[in-house]
C-alpha cells in the first residue's frame, strides 16, 4: 500500500531527520538557557535577602556569609549571573536546608519514582485513549453524526464520563479510588511505593490511573475527532476503493494521521502531567518529585524548588523533542 505523498529516497530522508534532530537539540539548549535565566531573574527579584532564602530562617551569620560567597551575591549582577550559570553547568544545585543534603542527590532519588508514574500514566492514556477514540469514531461513522435516540444515550453518557474524568481534580479521584478500590474492596494497596517488582506494580496501579484519568478522556476525544475526519479523506477512500476493509482502512490509514496531534500534545502534556504529580504523589504517598516540591514549597526550601523547576523544564524540552521525532516517523507530511 502506498502512502501519499510518496516518500523520497532513503538517504535524503535520513539527512532530513538528522538535520531536524540537530535543530531541535539546539532549540532545547536555548530553552534550557531561557529557563536558567528566568530562574535567576526570579531569585534576583525576591524582595528578601536571597542568601537568607537559600540557607533558611535558622541559619547563622556565618552560614549566611558562606551562601553569599558561594552564590557571588556580593558581586554585580553580571558576575552573579555568570556564577549562577556556571554552578548549574557543573551540576551543583546547592543544598536543601531542610535535609542538609545536596539538591542533586535528592532530585536524583525522586526522579525515578516520578518517571515510573509518568510512564505508566502515559501508557494508560494512550493504551486506553486511542482504542476508545477509534471505537467512538467508527460508531459515529456508522450511526451518522446526529445518531438515533437509541444510539445517542451511550454516546452522551460517554461524553459525560469524559467530561467528568477531565474536570475532576486528582485529589478527589485519588481519594475516591483509595476508599473504594483499596479500602473497601481491598484489591490494591492504599498508598506507598512498595518493593521492586510485582509489589511495586500493585502500588503503581491506582496512582497511575488517577494521574491518567483526565488524559484518557482527552486523548480519546482527540483521536475520535481526528479519525472521524480522516475516514472521510481521499486517501482513506482510495484505500477502501482498493479493497481494504473499513476496519483496516481506519486502523492502518486514518489512525496514523490522527495520531500526529496526539503525539505532539503528549509531548507538550508532559509539563502538565509533571505538575499533576504534585497532587497524585501527595495523595498516594508516592516518593517522587511532585511530593518533594510540595514539601519544599511548604517549608520554603528554595534550593530544592529551583532545582525541581530546572529539572522539570529540561524534562519537558526532551519530551517535546521525542514527541516531535515520533510524529515525523508516523506522518509523512511532517517529514517534508
Amino acid at each position, binding site marked *: 500500500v502506498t502512502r501519499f505523498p510518496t516518500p523520497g529516497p532513503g538517504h535524503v530522508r535520513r539527512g532530513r531527520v538528522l538535520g531536524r534532530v540537530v535543530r531541535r537539540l539546539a532549540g532545547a539548549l536555548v530553552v534550557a538557557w531561557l529557563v536558567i535565566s528566568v530562574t535567576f531573574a526570579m531569585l534576583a527579584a525576591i524582595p528578601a535577602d536571597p542568601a537568607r532564602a537559600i540557607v533558611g*530562617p*535558622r*541559619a*547563622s551569620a*556565618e*552560614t549566611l556569609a558562606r551562601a553569599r560567597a558561594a552564590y557571588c551575591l556580593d558581586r554585580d549582577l553580571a558576575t552573579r549571573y555568570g556564577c549562577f550559570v556556571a554552578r548549574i553547568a557543573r551540576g551543583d544545585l546547592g543544598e536543601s*536546608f*531542610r*535535609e*542538609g*543534603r545536596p539538591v542533586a542527590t*535528592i532530585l536524583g*532519588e*525522586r526522579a525515578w519514582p516520578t518517571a515510573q508514574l509518568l510512564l505508566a500514566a502515559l501508557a494508560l492514556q494512550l493504551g486506553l485513549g486511542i482504542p476508545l477514540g477509534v471505537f467512538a469514531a467508527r460508531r459515529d461513522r456508522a450511526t451518522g453524526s*446526529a*445518531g*438515533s*435516540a437509541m444510539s*445517542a*444515550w*451511550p454516546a*452522551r*453518557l460517554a461524553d459525560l464520563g469524559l467530561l467528568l474524568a477531565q474536570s475532576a481534580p486528582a485529589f478527589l479521584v485519588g*481519594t475516591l479510588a*483509595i*476508599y*473504594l478500590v*483499596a*479500602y*473497601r*474492596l*481491598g484489591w490494591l494497596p*492504599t*498508598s*506507598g*511505593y512498595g518493593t521492586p517488582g510485582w509489589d511495586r506494580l500493585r502500588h503503581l496501579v491506582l496512582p497511575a490511573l488517577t494521574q491518567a484519568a483526565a488524559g484518557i478522556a482527552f486523548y480519546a476525544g482527540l483521536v475520535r475527532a481526528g479519525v472521524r475526519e480522516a475516514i472521510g479523506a481521499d486517501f482513506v477512500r482510495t484505500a477502501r476503493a482498493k479493497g481494504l476493509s473499513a476496519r483496516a482502512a481506519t486502523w492502518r490509514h486514518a489512525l496514523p494521521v490522527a495520531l500526529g496531534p496526539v503525539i505532539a500534545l503528549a509531548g507538550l502534556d508532559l509539563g502538565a502531567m509533571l505538575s499533576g504529580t504534585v497532587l497524585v504523589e*501527595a*495523595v*498516594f*504517598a508516592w*516518593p517522587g518529585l511532585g*511530593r*518533594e516540591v510540595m*514539601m519544599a*514549597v*511548604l*517549608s*520554603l526550601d528554595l534550593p530544592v524548588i529551583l532545582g525541581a523547576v530546572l529539572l522539570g523544564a529540561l524534562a519537558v524540552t526532551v519530551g517535546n523533542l521525542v514527541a516531535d521525532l515520533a510524529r515525523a516517523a508516523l506522518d509523512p507530511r511532517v517529514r517534508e
Partner: protein
Amino acid sequence: VVSARPPAPVALAAALAIAIGTACRPPDDVPRIRAGVRATPRDGGTLRLAFNQGLATLDPSVANDDVSAAILAPLYDTLLAFEPMDPDRPDAPGAGLRLVPQLAERWEVSADGLRYRFVLRADATYRDGTPIVAADLRFALERALRRPDSPFAAFLADLVGADAVIAGAAPTCAGLATPDPRTLELTLARPNPALPQILTMKFATPIRADAPPDQTGDAPLTSGPFEVARWDHGVAITLRRNPHYRDAGRAHLDQLVLLEQVPRDTAFLMFLRGELEACAPLTAPDLQWLLAQPAWRPQLRRGHGMNAFGARMNVRVPPFDDRRVRQALNLAIDKDHLRRVLGGDATIAHGILPPGLLGRDDALAPYPHDPARARALLGAAGYPRGLDLTFATFTDDEAERVAASMVADLAVVGVRVRIETMAMAPWQEAIRLPDGPPFSIATWTEDYPDPTSFLDVRFHGRAISAEGSSNDSFFADPALDDLLDRARGELDVDRRVALYHQAERLLFDAAPWIWGYHRDQVEVVQPTVRGYAPHPVWGRDFTTAWLDPAEDAP
C-alpha cells in the same frame, strides 16, 4: 435535540458493582486485628506508624521538629530522661515529666547551682557494643555550640566559655570538663535550674569524636534501645531492637516501621485496614466517628501536651496597643465552644504554661465568655462601633476550624475579621517581623518542659529583634522581664514557682495573646498495642510499647 433517556443499564451496573463491593467487606466499626489477653509484656513483632510530614535528618545536633522528636526518641539515650508514661495513669499530674537518670548512674549539683557533675553508668554502650565515655558527651555539647545550623546553641549559653565557642573564637568550651572517662562536669556562669531538662534533649546524646563529621548518615552510631535498620528517604525508616542495649525491659518490639509523608485521610484508612498499629493526629470527623463506635472508643489513647494555642497580637500596632482591646478580645471568645470544636481534648488556658508544668498557677481562672463586657471595653477604648481586623492563619485542618470559631465569636461583639490563610512556613516567618501580620493564630510547643521555654522565649523583652522575634507579640514590660530573670536563676523551687505565678498574673492582665487552650494528644491504637500512651515531651514514643496478638495467645 435527542430525547435524553436515562442511561439505565450502565448506571444500574455501576451502582450494583459499588454496592456489592462495599457490602462484601466487613464494616470497620470493630477493629480487624484481634488481641490476646497477656498480662505481662511479650517480646517481638513489628509496630507500624505513619507521619504526615517527612523525616528531614537523623542528626541530633540539628533535628528540630515533631517527626524527628518521635523518631529520635528510641534511637538516642541521654544523661537524663523523662520517665516513660504509665499507660494506666496518663492523667496523673506531671505524668511523664519526672526526670530519671538514663546514661548517668548518678548526678549532683553544687549548692550555688553553678556546677553539675554526672557519673556515667559503667555499662553504657553504643549500638556496636563499644563503651560511651564522658568525652563523647563533651564532644556532642561542643558540636551543638559550634555548628552554625544548630538551633540548640542558645540552650547551652549559660556554660562558662559557651559564647566563645558559639562565636567561633574557641574550639572547646571552658565550662566542660572530663576528669575521668566516666565523669562529666559542667560549670555555669550563672545558675540555670532548667539545665537538667535541657540535657534530656537529643542534641546532648553522646557522639564519638571520631564519628564522621556529618552525622546525617543513614546509620548513625546510636545509643538507645533501637537502631536504624534501613532508611529509604521520603518513604519509610525502619528501626530494629539494639542487641547491645543494657535494659531489655525498655525494648520489646523487634521493629518499628515509620512511614513518611502519608496524608492524614490515607493514614486513617490504612489504620482501619489494619496496615498501621496506631494513627495520629486524627482529623475532627475521624475522631467523632471513633468516639461513636463502642468497639473503637476504648482504643483511644490520650496524653497531655506541653503546648499552648490561641491568638497573638502585636501590642505595638493599633488597635492592639490598647490593653482594653486585647482584654475585650479575650472576653469575646467562647472557649467551651473551642473545646467542642477540638472534640473535647483540650484544657482551656489562662496563660501560656500548660497543666502539669512547674510554675503554672492552677488557681488562676481563664477569661470568662462575656460578650457584654467585651463590648463595653471596646467602647471605652474608642471603638463603640466595633473593629475591622485581618487574622492570619496557616493551612491546617485544626487551625482553620479554630480560626473560624474565633471569628464567629468576635463578630458577636462587633469585631469583623477577615481570615488570611498562608502556608505554615511563610506564616511562621511573617509573624516574627515587626511589620508582619499583627493579629494571627498562635501556637507554641516547648523545647524542654520548663517555664523558661515558654515565658522567656515568647514574652521577654530580650526575645524581640528586628530580623525576627520569638517574642512575636513584641510585648516588653520591665516588670515582667525582672520577674522572669529572677525566676530563671532561682534555685529554691517554691520561690521560683511564686515568681512564675506573679508573671502569669501580669501576663493574664496584659493579654498579649487571646489565651486559647492546651491541646491534649489523642491517638488511636489497635487492640494489640499495649503499654503505650502519648508522651508529653516525646509525643509518639513507642519505645516501651509491646504487641499482644491473638493468634499465639497462651
